[in-house]
């Protein structure tokens, strides 16, 4: 059943496959981001209570959701790498960590810039904000471990164990607004239920979410290819590829 997947465990096949996808991913990213951002900034209605400060929602919520999704993806890759020793899973985990860190930083920053006018404070040590900050530190720890060892396999193992332990933080972030009293509001957008917002606010959200998600995919693909090259620099196919492209 999974036989069709096997060739992609080969670094060379994966490198070229992702390389073929990249131009399409970049085009879709630009299209979705442009629609999403213009719709969010210009055409979406202002909130009846929060006015136009509500437009921060269109960056804050997508990045906050993605910060957790990327972490789960990274931890799953780390799990596959630790259990079945898939070399490429480790490369993809290493590719995802810096992207996740930047997305988490954006979620935290836009949250602060939204909190100041709405709550009256940039930061408060409540459950949602603190657990999201811990997520940023987990990402930074994983990045540091990936770079701490000359031997990439050893580094991948150490970083993988940290990312697996850190998974415990994900449900804490997700349910923090229900488990504890917090300034942060509950979920507006959820997978399972109809969104508790009007369609002319929700549709631009869908576009900005998909746009940022595609941008994340784009960057992860680039970094994934870089990781493959860096880890396979001695292989004949990499030598041939580099010789064919020449020195720039």
């Amino acid at each position: 059943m999974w036989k069709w997947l096997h060739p992609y465990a080969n670094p060379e096949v994966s490198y070229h496959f992702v390389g073929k996808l990249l131009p399409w991913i970049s085009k879709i990213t630009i299209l979705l981001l442009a629609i999403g951002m213009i719709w969010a900034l210009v055409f979406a209605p202002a909130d009846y209570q929060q006015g136009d400060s509500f437009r921060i929602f269109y960056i804050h919520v997508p990045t906050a959701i993605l910060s957790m999704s990327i972490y789960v993806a990274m931890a799953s890759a780390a799990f596959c790498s630790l259990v079945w020793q898939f070399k490429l899973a480790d490369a993809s985990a290493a590719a995802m960590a810096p992207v996740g860190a930047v997305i988490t930083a954006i979620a935290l920053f836009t949250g602060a810039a939204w909190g100041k006018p709405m709550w009256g404070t940039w930061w408060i040590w409540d459950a949602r904000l603190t657990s999201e900050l811990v997520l940023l530190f987990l990402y930074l720890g994983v990045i540091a471990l990936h770079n701490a060892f000359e031997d990439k396999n050893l580094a991948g193992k150490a970083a993988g164990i940290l990312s697996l332990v850190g998974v415990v933080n994900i449900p804490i972030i997700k349910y923090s607004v229900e488990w504890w009293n917090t300034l942060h509001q509950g979920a507006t957008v959820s997978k399972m239920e109809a969104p508790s917002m009007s369609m002319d606010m929700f549709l631009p959200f869908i576009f900005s979410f998909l746009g940022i998600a595609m941008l994340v995919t784009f960057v992860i693909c680039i970094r994934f290819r870089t990781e493959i090259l860096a880890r396979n620099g001695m292989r004949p196919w990499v030598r041939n590829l580099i010789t064919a492209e020449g020195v720039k």
Partner: protein
Amino acid sequence: MQFDSISAFFDMGGYAFFVWLSYGVSALLLTLLVYTSLNNHKNVKNKIAQRLLREKKLRKAAQKQSADQDNSVVENPSKNTNEAVS
């Protein structure tokens, strides 16, 4: 269109600072992320290319050296035999 004029758009209903700060910092961070990732890819490729060049040079030097040694071996036999005779 939610805004009556360009200036109303930039004013963001009085929340200009916070809205544009959020969008600006996010755009800056994402641009930096894309730029460093592309740059990183190029750097890794260049590093491998440089290593290949160095290996090629070393190989050439080694070939030249062994060729010189071969020549010296060809020139020397008479000397060796002389020594053996004496």
